[in-house]
């Protein structure tokens, strides 16, 4: 009996040593464009080349390795199409060919993005909760934003001098979130201008921004109870060309001599040309953008600058609208979450645990 058992174990052991495995499986939780390949060969292997069948006995190499046990994910495939793979293994005195096949299929949920979904849900729920709380009378504190102090000062000075205010809503179209943030600030500014009977000039680069700006200003004048004071000609289209647009605004600043200039939204290479010309006219200047590369120019040439996120917070700060304050509080929850994640992530990395980082990194691949 012992002899048989010994023989049985020798057979199992030797077969496990010599077993050559080459498997292809659909990559789980993906969009059906990848196949996972795995191989286990004798440790004596010198070279492994994996090829994919294309057509007419034509195979293209997709991966090569010198490892006896390994895996590889072939990407860029078409979903629901059968793919054949060939493994060519070279040993010191022999060679081996193994074949396998698999069909990639798409799944409804990409598990790798779970971290993205969880963080997004958490932040969205926080925003909804705070908006709900604000609607039910809960008051939220919002810290002082120095850049917005200029608004009253600018309107006051423009009213005293009988000069208009120039408002540039950036040079991007409505598909830029900064332009939308800019239009919400414009709404508040236009309402104040209407109250003080001060003209507001809004040159626009794109037709969609022009239409939206006109709507916003018109509504602001109606809200202020002065719909007749609204001048649609003060909100006008200049040109789609970036530097043509800037040249036009420079001309307005020089000839109309606005008492205050507001540059709010997305700006690129033209930021310094705009702000420097405005500075030379002696107007009070306020700028706000989330374009990190343009902020230095605004910081040095403008009296007040809204840095990055302050542009998005400005609307809530100015209006004190419970809904916007609640939303801002929700955003702050997101920032606190980011700080917490970074601190915990760094501590875990120091301890040699990378699970949290990998979980979040999986969401952005």
């Amino acid at each position, binding site marked *: 009996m012992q002899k048989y058992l010994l023989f049985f174990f020798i057979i199992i052991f030797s077969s496990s040593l010599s077993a050559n495995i080459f498997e292809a499986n659909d990559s789980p939780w993906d969009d059906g464009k990848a196949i996972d390949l795995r191989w286990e060969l004798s440790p004596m292997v010198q070279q492994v080349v994996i090829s994919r069948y294309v057509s007419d006995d034509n195979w293209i190499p997709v991966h090569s390795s010198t490892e006896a046990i390994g895996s590889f994910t072939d990407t860029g495939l078409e979903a629901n199409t059968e793919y054949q793979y060939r493994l060519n293994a070279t040993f010191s005195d022999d060679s081996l060919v193994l074949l396998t096949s698999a069909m990639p299929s798409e799944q409804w949920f990409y598990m790798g993005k779970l*971290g993205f979904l969880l*963080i*997004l849900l958490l*932040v969205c729920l926080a925003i909804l909760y705070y908006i709900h709380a604000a609607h039910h009378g809960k008051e*939220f*504190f*919002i*810290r002082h*934003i120095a850049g917005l102090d200029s608004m009253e000062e600018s309107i006051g000075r423009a009213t005293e001098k009988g000069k208009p205010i120039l408002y540039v809503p950036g040079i991007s179209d*409505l*598909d*830029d*979130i900064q332009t*939308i943030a800019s239009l919400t600030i414009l709404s508040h500014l236009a309402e104040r201008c209407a109250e003080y009977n001060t003209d507001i000039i809004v040159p626009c680069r794109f*037709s*969609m921004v022009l*239409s*939206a700006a006109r*709507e916003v200003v018109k509504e602001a004048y109606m809200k202020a109870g002065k719909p007749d004071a609204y001048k649609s000609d003060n909100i006008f*289209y*200049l*040109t*789609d*060309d970036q*530097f*043509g*647009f800037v*040249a*036009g605004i420079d*001309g307005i600043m*020089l*000839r109309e001599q606005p008492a205050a200039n507001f540059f709010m939204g997305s700006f690129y290479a033209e930021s310094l040309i705009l702000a420097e010309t405005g500075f030379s006219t002696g107007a009070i200047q306020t700028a706000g953008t989330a374009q*990190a*590369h343009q*902020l*230095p*120019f605004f*910081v*040095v040439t403008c009296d007040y600058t809204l*840095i990055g*996120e302050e542009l998005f*917070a400005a609307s809530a700060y100015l209006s004190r609208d419970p809904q916007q304050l609640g939303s*801002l*509080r929700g955003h*702050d929850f997101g*920032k606190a979450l*980011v*700080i917490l*994640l*970074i601190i915990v*992530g*760094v501590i*875990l*990395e*120091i301890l040699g645990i990378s699970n949290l*980082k990998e979980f*979040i*990194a999986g*969401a*952005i691949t």
Partner: protein
Amino acid sequence: MAIMTTIGIWVAAFFTLCIFSFLYKDNPFYKFAEQVFVGLSAAYWLVYIIYSIMIPNLFAKLSSDFSGNLILLIPAALGVMMLMRIHPKTEWISRYPISIMIGTTAGISMLRYMKSDILQQVTATMINPFASGSVPVIIGNLLLIIGTICGVYFFYFSKKQEGISKWPSKVGIWFLMVSFGATFGYTVMARISLLIGRLEFLLGDWLHIIK
């Protein structure tokens, strides 16, 4: 052909000098160059949008295969609704395409910025600062972590920045200002190269003073 090139160079040189004349003060030459530029660019973009966007993406596709491109009728209808602004009585119709545009932008941007501005930054900051034995690298890693945390905290609006909580905010604004200074210097250098390009045109292509 050569005469046209020469005329082109002279026109370009004239307009370059007109724009440079602004360095002295606003003057009729600058006004002329500015208004020609604005008018030409507006006309150019109108033609460009018609021939490079409207015709190939909408009219050509609908005229060649109408039934296969029915989906294009949606943006076409939205475009027509935008044109309703022309008449005061139908102006309200244009609010719908504007609303769709703003809503779509907000939705798409939320995911895009969540990924690029938040998650990528968070994972890039989750590092072991002491992984490298090199002291400068360790200091750099610590500055990266502290700068990121304090920079984010600077934009935390729901808490009064006083007492101990004002320090992370102060450190955050220092980091921001240092980065602004570096960006300013870098971009000014790039602008100087633009000026050099213009001077090369004037002194080389136009006056042939330099080769």
